[in-house]
């Protein structure tokens, strides 16, 4: 074997950070779909919840209907924005926090840290993987909503423009928060136990599972500190009729506030990721 391996190959320059980042996105995305846990608890979870809510509450009639029973939207349509928001949160925060904490404790990061892979390429790979999988998840959710659950989707381009920026902004914010949160669990095994309750509680208080407008005011205020409430509100503005805006905290969709809150969390997540990330737990 030595004879064949001795052959010198043409000298190449070092691969660029961006090229390696793109290569990481492909690699990470492939591995995402080979992990059964991630598929169930991150990718398909919103589908399962949407199915359960639709099946459980459809008999109680439309939500937001007039006293005579007309108007309003069916249960599936009401919960769709919340499930889209939950998918964004799961794809970013839960997926990356558990994934990276696991990679830290199983030696993956130590191995990568000994190679000329830039941490920036590694992050590009993670964020890109979140993006690709979140887009697939949202697309599939909309497909199921439209075709299976017979939910009417908006046709106005400006609604879809809102959807696009809330989605992109929310997914990037989630991805950074996931990277930052991955520093908290002490081991890969405890990662799910640390991350899942945080994500679950947020979903309950932010209007994903429970109708946000029926929650007590103090809980609404508490949820307003965190980004999920704003993602869900942004999504409601896209998929619910204008008449539902009146039920929001301020009586409007408050899109500038959605952008502001997500922006603050994006910066916070970026800074925390940058400060806490290490290839290995370095001593002294």
């Amino acid at each position, binding site marked *: *074997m*030595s004879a064949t*391996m*001795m052959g010198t190959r043409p000298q190449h*320059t070092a691969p660029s950070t961006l090229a390696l980042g793109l290569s990481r996105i492909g690699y990470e995305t492939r591995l995402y779909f080979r992990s059964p846990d991630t598929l169930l608890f991150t990718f398909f979870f919103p589908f399962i919840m949407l199915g359960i809510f639709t099946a459980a509450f459809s008999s109680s009639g439309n939500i937001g209907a007039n006293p005579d029973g007309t108007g309003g939207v069916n249960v599936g349509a009401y919960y769709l924005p919340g499930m889209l928001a939950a998918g964004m949160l799961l794809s970013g925060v839960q997926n990356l926090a558990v994934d990276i904490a696991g*990679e830290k404790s199983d*030696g993956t990061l*130590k191995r990568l840290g000994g190679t000329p892979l830039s941490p920036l390429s590694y992050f590009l790979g993670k964020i890109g993987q979140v993006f690709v999988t979140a887009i697939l998840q949202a697309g599939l959710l909309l497909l199921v909503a439209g075709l299976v659950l017979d939910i009417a989707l908006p046709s106005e381009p400006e609604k879809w423009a809102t959807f696009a920026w809330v989605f992109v902004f929310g997914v990037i914010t989630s991805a950074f928060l996931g990277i930052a949160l991955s520093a908290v669990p002490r081991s890969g095994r405890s990662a799910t136990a640390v991350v899942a309750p945080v994500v679950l509680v947020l979903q309950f208080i932010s209007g994903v599972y429970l109708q946000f407008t029926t929650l007590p005011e103090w809980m609404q205020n508490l949820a307003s500190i965190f980004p999920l409430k704003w993602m869900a509100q942004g999504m409601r503005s896209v998929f619910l009729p204008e008449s539902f805006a009146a039920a929001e905290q301020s009586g409007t969709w408050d899109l500038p506030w959605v952008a502001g809150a997500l922006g603050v969390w994006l910066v916070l997540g970026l800074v925390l990721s940058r400060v806490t990330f290490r290839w290995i737990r370095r001593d002294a």
Partner: protein
Amino acid sequence: MTATPPVVQVRDLQKSYGSVEAVRGVSFSIEAGETFALLGPNGAGKSTTIEILEGYRDRTGGEVRVLGVDPHRGGLDWKARIGIVLQTSNESGNATVTEQLRHFAGFYPHPRDVDEVIDAAGLREKAKTRISKLSGGQRRRVDVALGIIGRPELLFLDEPTTGFDPEARHQFWNLIRGLKAEGTTILLTTHYLDEAAQLGDRAGIIVGGRLIDIGPLDTIGGADARVPVVRWRDGNGLVREERTSRPAQVVADLVASGKGAELEGLEVIRPSLEDVYLSLVRGHEATAAGNEAAMSAPEARPDPSRLTDKDVRA
């Protein structure tokens, strides 16, 4: 040759974890193309030393240069010139062998050919298998393959053959000999002394955070530690031994005194590297223990040079 600076230079390396001194003043250097074996019992400071050289750990004191760079400040260009085979890890392994090697090859400016590395590591039949489905020994081969995929000038091998069956170990040795023939410098730690003897040019032995001996593998431990032993069974069936630098003469004398009768169970034993290593390590541990006892009773200190192979085998 003499103009080339050493690939690895370590001077008075020290590392403490809190009050525990893991490495206490280790110095050695490794020349280009050399294979250097770092030996020592568990917890002696081998892995700490190698991880400082790899850039994973910071040192408390001393000077370290790896490929002319302080590993603590080694950037991506520096990492592209080294290859690291860590001790066993438990990664999830959802990529196939080929996918993993192809992906890692992309990190380096001039990697080896993925298929050649797969063949060299004896992984051809498992090339399309997910790493998680491989046996422990096969996973270890993937580790080695990932360590050499970037065509490193310096390769770190931290207990590379743990979990290998004898045939896999011999295949691995051939792989490493091929790398040596190409001029790769190698730093090896191992618990298998035959492996060090097969692959190493020089060895250093670390005990208790100190380098207790260093030298070419055929002279380490000094001439005294390599004195052969003649062993036979006497007329009463008792096993007798004699350490001698002239074993042929001893055997001739025994034959003469027995009037030409065959000697039962005759053996001339040359201490293996393992024997030499064990006598060095135990001698050192005895000295260390003796030094503590010396506070109260100086005469209780044992003389390590009087330890024989018989003591060592006991």
